[in-house]
């Protein structure tokens, strides 16, 4: 990738053009005041109409089905269904937050700052990355849920027979392939390692493959391919462009995961249409 070698000016506050400036009072203070009022009113009305939920008192013996995290964590809860829990719930968000925090140190070019989509291909990249991620995430969820295989079978009468069953979803790689006995307990080290009371003795290779390797390959590989293709097409030319694609992909993917987790996951995390959704016990009027 060709990056121009230009000496960058040392970061410093921009110079001020007095004649381009307006007074904070009234121009900004009034805008702020009005938006604060609009919000106060909206929240007030909303609160007058809709009550905050309150179910039965907490009971450790009655597990609602489904049990769901707060909505903004349902993206992670959805991810959890498709891979190792620690990977989905902790490593992925932590790595993402870390990566996002260093965005500005990766893309240090001043071009296009301070305006919406200020660089040449910004809108194109954003829209296309958004669409790809939307469709891609849905396809992956459907595939891992076994729906794709079902559709192929039901709609086109396609059935790979038993020899292709391992392609049905990610975990079928583990359950449908004839793994040799030894592959499920490959020792890590020549001694038994225990870290903070947790054993690290053997690698279960098939499990590692479907719980960690395949998901990571998808999560790292697919965005890389997306950026690569957009680069080959000639749209992505700078680091900013690459970030636009990746960030948009992330936002859209998280959005899809949140929506699926919220509106499409029913009892026992079964994938259903929103109108077939069964809400948890204990919500008044839902039993």
């Amino acid at each position, binding site marked *: 990738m060709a990056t121009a070698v230009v000496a960058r000016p040392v970061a410093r506050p921009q110079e001020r053009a007095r004649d381009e400036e307006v007074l904070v009072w009234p121009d900004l203070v009034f805008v702020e005041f009005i938006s604060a009022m609009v919000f106060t009113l909206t929240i007030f009305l909303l609160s007058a109409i809709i009550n905050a939920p309150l179910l039965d008192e907490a009971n450790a013996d009655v597990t609602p089905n489904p049990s769901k995290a707060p*909505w903004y964590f349902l993206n992670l809860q959805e991810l959890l269904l498709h891979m190792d829990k620690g990977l989905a719930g902790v490593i992925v968000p932590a790595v993402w937050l870390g990566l996002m925090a260093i965005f500005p140190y990766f893309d240090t070019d001043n071009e296009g700052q301070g305006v919406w989509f200020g660089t040449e291909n910004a809108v194109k990249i954003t829209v296309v990355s958004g669409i790809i991620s939307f469709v891609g995430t849905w396809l992956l969820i459907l595939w891992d849920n076994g729906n794709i295989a079902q559709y192929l079978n039901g709609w086109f009468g396609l059935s790979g027979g038993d020899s292709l069953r391992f392609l049905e979803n990610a975990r079928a790689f583990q359950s449908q392939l004839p793994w040799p006995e030894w592959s499920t307990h490959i020792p890590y080290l020549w001694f038994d390692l225990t870290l903070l009371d947790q054993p690290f003795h053997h690698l279960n290779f098939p499990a590692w493959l479907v719980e960690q390797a395949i998901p990571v390959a998808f999560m790292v590989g697919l965005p890389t391919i997306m950026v690569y293709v957009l680069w080959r097409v000639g749209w992505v030319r700078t680091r900013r462009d690459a970030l636009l694609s990746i960030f948009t992909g992330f936002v859209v993917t998280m959005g899809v995961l949140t929506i699926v987790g919220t509106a499409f996951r029913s009892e026992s995390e079964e994938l259903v249409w929103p109108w077939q959704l069964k809400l948890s016990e204990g919500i008044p009027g839902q039993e």
Partner: protein
Amino acid sequence: MAVETPTKPTIADKIYDKMFHNYVWKSIFRTGYPNTPRNQMLVVATNVFLHLHPTRIHRTHVKITHTYCLGGLTFFMFLGLTVTGILLMFYYVPSVERAYLDIQNIETTVQFGQLMRNMHRWMAHAMVILVFLHMMRVFYTGAYKPPREFNWVVGVILLVLTFLLSFTGYLLPWDQLAFWAITVGTNIAGAAPVLGPKTKFWLLGGFEVGPDALIRFYTLHVIGLPLLAAIFMAVHFWRIRRDGGLARPL
């Protein structure tokens, strides 16, 4: 502007003068009602709340479509949550015996209690949504670029703090929704490799959600995290000023 010719002050002028140019008013606000550019700048510079702002800003930044006020509204939600939160604290005791009953009481017997609870709840959701949208606006306007790199990092910390604030508050009603959502949530944290189980234990003060978890979440929710968030917000706002206001094209 037309040339001003001196006219006799009307009744309205006199009342106006009495209201905004008297000794007490000036002792409080230092300037009269800010109706001249000079006073308008003075009021912004000398008022402790308004002086978060510079006295002048670039034309493009007051256009609503530049920021959609998203950062400001996030902050406004934080303030509103503080007010309604304090009111709720008068009635709520974070013990397993009382928490649920207290919430029921707030809803049924406390004057405007239901309204307070509703507002606190919906503002909390609004804040999570707004902070995310604010981040998107900052990203798509390329406002993290130099010299604002570090303020973006501060922002990421604020994003995490916002999620944690909301998450810790979620447990407090001590109903089935709260209990199981936090159970699911902390199980996610507990699944982290190596550090997971210890982290979960430390979060909950035990192996599962119980009285110790409630008091931990409560303390974090009402003082620990808000304090941290306030500190980082102060840094965030200060940095905006130090970095020369909002980003604009070179």
